[in-house]
């Protein structure tokens, strides 16, 4: 089942065509990696999906509904979770409270002045933290966590709204190799079990070819290859523009 469908997306900055005529789709329970050398248009593409940049042409449909013109806030309400390249969490709150905020927002309780925030959805928050292996650290302030743990907290926060689509921008940037694989393993498990569609950008080819179900390759703003990791790895054009000499 197609969750996210991108058709003929295009964006130019001044005279530079950052993205041209890009189309692809992500299905439920599938991990799709978007790769490409620097300047290929990955970030522009990503920002057009989550409401930060308006495309010049093309369509972005989530479960058959256009996301164009919606704010990041509205897109989240529809069921799209996000993690950031550089983690963004609430530093003055505990790990559990970070997840509780997402739950409070999901249940539209943010305007309550009478409830106690720390007692709201605490059990649900702990359950989510258990899924990402952070239950033991629930009471620690986010500001003192190790980077890899922050990434896990972000994952729990993103899952709080029961999203059908998860957008992960360079999820393993700044992590040690072993941590990278653990985090992506976790994300892959959660996605497959929950039937969540995952779109992620990634620089680490090891991560991409180990965990992605399918890979799309951008170069010069155009989609040049699409398919299972092995096929993409073998693609001559990909090797030429992306892997350079072919021995990477």
């Amino acid at each position, binding site marked *: 089942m197609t969750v996210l469908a991108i058709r003929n997306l295009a964006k130019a900055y001044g005279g530079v065509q950052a993205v041209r005529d890009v189309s692809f789709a992500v299905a439920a329970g599938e991990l799709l990696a978007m790769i490409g050398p620097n300047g290929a248009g990955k970030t522009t593409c990503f920002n057009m999906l989550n409401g930060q940049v308006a495309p010049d042409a093309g369509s972005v449909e989530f479960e058959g509904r256009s996301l164009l013109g919606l704010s990041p806030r509205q897109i989240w309400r529809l069921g799209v979770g996000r993690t950031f390249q550089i983690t963004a969490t609430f530093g003055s*709150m505990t790990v559990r409270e970070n997840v509780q905020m997402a739950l409070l927002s999901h249940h539209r309780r943010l305007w309550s002045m009478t409830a106690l925030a720390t007692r709201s959805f605490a059990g649900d928050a702990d359950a989510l933290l258990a899924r990402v292996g952070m239950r033991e650290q629930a009471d620690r302030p986010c500001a003192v966590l190790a980077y890899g743990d922050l990434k896990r907290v972000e994952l729990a926060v993103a899952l709080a709204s029961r999203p059908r689509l998860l957008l992960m921008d360079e999820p393993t940037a700044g992590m040690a190799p072993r941590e990278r694989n653990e985090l992506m393993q976790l994300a892959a498990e959660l996605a497959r079990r929950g039937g969540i569609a995952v779109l992620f950008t990634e620089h680490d080819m090891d991560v991409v070819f180990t965990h992605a179900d399918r890979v799309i390759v951008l170069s010069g703003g155009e989609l040049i290859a699409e398919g299972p990791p092995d096929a993409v790895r073998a693609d001559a054009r990909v090797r030429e523009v992306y892997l350079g000499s072919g021995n990477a």
Partner: protein
Amino acid sequence: MGSVPFFFMSASSILIQFLNGLASASSLFLVAAGLSLIFGVTRIINFAHGSLFMLGMYLAVALAPMLGFWWSVPLAALAVAAFGALVEATLLRRLYAAPELLQLLATFALVLVIKDFTLWAWGPEDLLGPRAPGMDGAVRIAGLRYPEYDLFLIGFGPLVLGALWFLLRRTRWGTLVRAATQDREMAGALGVNQRWLFTSVFALGALLAGLGGAVQIPREPATLFIDLQIISDAFVVVVVGGLGSIPGAFLAALLIAEIKSFCIGLGYSKITLVVEFIVMAVVLIVRPWGLLGRMPAQTRGPGALELPLALPSRNALVALGGTALALALVPLLSAGYTLVLLTDILVFALFAVSLHFIMGPGGLHSFGHAAYFGLGAYGAGLLLLKGGVPMELALVFAPLLAVLGALVFGWFCVRLSGVYLAMLTLAFAQITWSVMFQWDAFTGGSNGLIGIWPSSWLSSKTAYYYLTLATCVGAIALLWRVLYSPFGYALRAGRDSPLRADAIGIDVRAQQWAAFVFAGLFAGLAGALFAFSKGSISPEALAVPRSVDGLVMVLLGGIQTLTGPVWGAALFIWLQDVVSRSVDYWRAVIGAVVLFLVLVFPQGVTGFLRERFAR
């Protein structure tokens, strides 16, 4: 002069008003350009810039009889520049790494010190300056007389703009300034002598402010009010023109000055502020960073780490309850002055807690919170005296005036952050003050309103003390309780990471706006209680120094704790009471104390204590 519809103005009087606007713009531009320049390089908003303008005026007036007008202007400007360099080298230099809020507070303390110095040196009377020799006549323009000196001023602004352009674009010093403006760390890494550069930039900014003041003396008298008037005008100019842009400052100064000039020319001088406000509003909606400004880079300092908000322990609740109970027992032991002082402390504790609500958890650094205090106070007075409403109802409904103000002003304020927000809140407070100050018929103008007494059953000191105690304790408890609710948490979420808050569906602006209004409501309640406790109300209740008092209370007690603002208020009011009874220039003393605290504890008193205890 009555009001004249625009289409009845003759072509020649339109021309004259236009020229008047141009002449006023020059002086305004000088101040705003200096402010912008200093901010660009040092990242400090110099709240004392209007005070430097005032010093320039007084110095020029004082020097003119000895040296003649044309020598007094440049010498006054140079003296102000030297003073600026001294301030930078002895004070501000130590604060470049301190949190933004403390830097603003330090320059604010300077405002207090300079004002009292001016009062001490030249007295409270307005001083009239001389006319400019050789330019004291008038020329005929389109059949109307126009002062020669104003023509000189019209040319002077663009001349300074040109000189600044040359200095910044064509000299090595200017290249360094521009490099430091764009990337301070990089400029430092490239071996730019930062100390010398910063001092010289500050001196130049001060020179421009002093010059702006000095050239004004043939046109208007030097007064002790001019400092805050000018700084809020300059803030409006900088917000409209774009912070850090000199041509933007020029453009905005022209715009604002022309608006003022035409409002005055048409006989609508009282609505000048409203028109100015509308222009600023439109610019901020269309171009949030000003006409020629760019979105500021995020320059958040390392700032002290804030711990999660734990629910209060049983012991803490018992201690708070015990304090309230002890306060309730005070009238049994003592009456008279103690109760008056405690009433004041309670009122300002509520004021400080309401400010902390938006400043601490909300991260909205308001420099104009007194506006809502004052609106509540005036609301009480006006309802009682003009509306004939019973005192009890007046107390209940007065804060709604503050709510109204917070609704309108807050809508703009939450669109900005950091120093822009601080400047805008200050400008709004100054506008509110001006309305109260100028609207003689309704608000009693500078005299204010008298005869705002509580009902007879509340007229004794003890009865009113109990009313204040119950109201303030209840209100403070409510404000604190809300911080533990999802609403309060969402507010902190928006402060900690707007990016993440947005990504999980929190409407940060809407929640900040609501918090702004909520805090305004309680500041208004404090103001209403204040009015009935004093029996009168004057524009001083919402003047800028009152806003600063609130900031000092919050920062003194510690912005990262809930109870801090209460202790800060108690300490501040008590200190003020002691000092003002024994010293004439108590504002200067308060300013000096603040400067001392900022220099000794650049991370704030609580930050300091935390660090101590953490070890």
